[in-house]
């Protein structure tokens, strides 16, 4: 079974994985610079980050998925919801060294903006020095899906409620993914959501 690492508790900047196995890293509203170094064949690391920015919160985060050994997999997903004057500055790097053939690396950053005063900066970088690899990254930033909002409206769900339903769904998706790997993982999305209130 996968090993869970809660970055908010670990307080580590550099995580060096040296033994084969499945690892899950989770963090929320964390600023800092984090390196995930995959130093042995057969390592799979899932990295999940959750951000809720409200008022004047200001997050600056750097991540580095560093594939040093061959046949390693890393999969990063960072989701954020931003209200008020909050700021989010993300720079994520996937670096695959020449020796790390047959590695797979994924990186995804999805942000929802809920106020015209937010500032989002997303820099998903790739540095690939091996050829027999597969890497993708994606980044989306935007408002809530207007079609989904319209649908809920047509079902007579008032705007505020519809909005929070969609946000819960958006963030809940990430939490479910963690739970798929770590069944005992339990986070109350509602209590998270209150952070923004």
């Amino acid at each position, binding site marked *: 079974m996968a090993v869970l690492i809660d970055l908010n508790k670990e307080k580590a900047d550099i995580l060096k994985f040296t033994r084969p196995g499945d690892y899950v890293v989770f963090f929320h509203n964390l600023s800092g610079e984090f390196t995930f170094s995959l130093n042995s064949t057969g390592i799979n690391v899932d990295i999940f980050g959750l951000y809720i920015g409200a008022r004047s919160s200001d997050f600056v985060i750097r991540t580095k998925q560093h594939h040093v050994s061959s046949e390693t997999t890393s999969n990063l997903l960072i989701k954020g919801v931003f209200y008020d004057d909050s700021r989010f500055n993300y720079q994520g790097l996937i670096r695959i060294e020449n020796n790390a053939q047959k590695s797979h690396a994924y990186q995804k950053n999805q942000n929802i903006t809920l106020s015209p005063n937010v500032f989002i900066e997303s820099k998903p970088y*790739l540095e690939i020095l091996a050829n027999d690899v597969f890497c*993708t*990254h994606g*980044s989306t*930033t935007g408002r809530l899906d207007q079609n989904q909002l319209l649908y809920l409206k047509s079902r007579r769900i008032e705007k505020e409620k519809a909005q929070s339903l969609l946000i819960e769904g958006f963030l809940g998706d990430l939490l479910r993914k963690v739970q798929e790997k770590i069944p005992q993982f339990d986070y109350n999305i509602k209590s998270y959501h209150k952070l923004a209130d």
Partner: protein
Amino acid sequence: MNQPNLNFNYKYGFSMPQKYVFKAKKGLNEEVVAAISTMKKEPVWMTEFRLKAFGIFKEKNMPNWGADLSRINFNEIFYYIKPTNKQVNKWENLPKEIRETYDKIGIPEAEKKYLMGVSAQYESEVVYESVNKQLSKQGVIFCDMGMAVKKYPDIVKKYFGSVIPASDNKFAALNSSVWSGGSFVYVPKGIKVKLPLQAYFRINAEQFGQFERTLIIVEEGGYVHYVEGCTAPVYATDSLHAAVVEIIVKKGARVRYTTVQNWSKNVYNLVTKRSRVEEDGIMEWVDCNIGSQVTMKYPSCYLMGKRARGEVLSIAFSGKNQHQDAGAKMLHFAPDTSSRIISKSISKDGGRTSYRGLVQVRPGAKNSSVYVSCDALILDDRSRSDTYPDMKIKETDINVQHEATVEKLGEEKLFYLSSRGINKTESEGLLVNGFIDPVAKEIPLEYAIELNRLINLEMSGSVG
């Protein structure tokens, strides 16, 4: 499987004996800048512009990001060479060597087909130029930049340096102080130029930097497609190419700018290309980088008016000792603006490709949408591919998407082709051409054919 490196004999790597009317001294100082301006019999305002830009150039630092530029020595370069005394408008009147050079590239053939205006740049001055009569009748101006400064001072003075000021970056400052050649295009209101305008560029002197300057202005509702293709002979010492291209797209106008860059593999190609797009305007950059040692080029669109649209389609190919650091910039200033960037890059034989992009959504650019897609192929284990997209968003009612993939050629596809009796080299060429096809099909036919041929040449035999 691992054959030795393809020692690709650069097809256009011939050089002609040099024959010049005037050649500036090596190196750069105020006297050289002033001498260039005097030689070109320029008005005082341009001389002042050059000298001011030179001051900025001296102060500006080299970029501290991107490709390695440490080997550029600004004092080892000739900044101005004038090949013949006057411009000629008949093919037969061109000097023999120049004609031979062009023959090898195939300019006359291309012209016979459907080029309406060929403006061929040999060294720093445009020496061969034929503008279709119909163009002039429509009021379209297509001439070399030096001539435009003299003949159309009002338009030039108004727009020259307005999109890319000399202070923009070190190489824009350098270009602003020593520029020569390049094209000037002016399309009046409502005029749609049906066939593409084309210019061919060559560098033919050792250690000689080419600093052409292009300015395109398309008035309300107008349209033009400008095509720039480059080939250059091989020399042992590094050559510097620092062009500046400024484009103004007025309300409802549309401009397409296509480049096929195939400088020889010792050229530093450091180019600033930018467009200003007004309401309902459309700007499209099609940018193919095959040659050069180092290219740093990020065509950009400043979307200033409502519903303005910007598009960059880019292909980069890096072989041995090459670094293509190319990309695009999209800056959204107005509501309902949209942009799209499609980048395809291929690295091989130790080459390195970097996609570097910037997307900025400014406050007030409501309902803007951005789509960026970067795909990279790495063909062997010595090559490298990077993706550096920056997105800065200061607005809420928007939609910004970015995606990128890096992979090798699909083994299943290769296997399928081999089962159909197609050999490996050919299959790889096919797949690479298929990979770039979404961009290549946007290029005028004869350039697309040339591109296809170049890719096949680059691919032949050496993929591991």
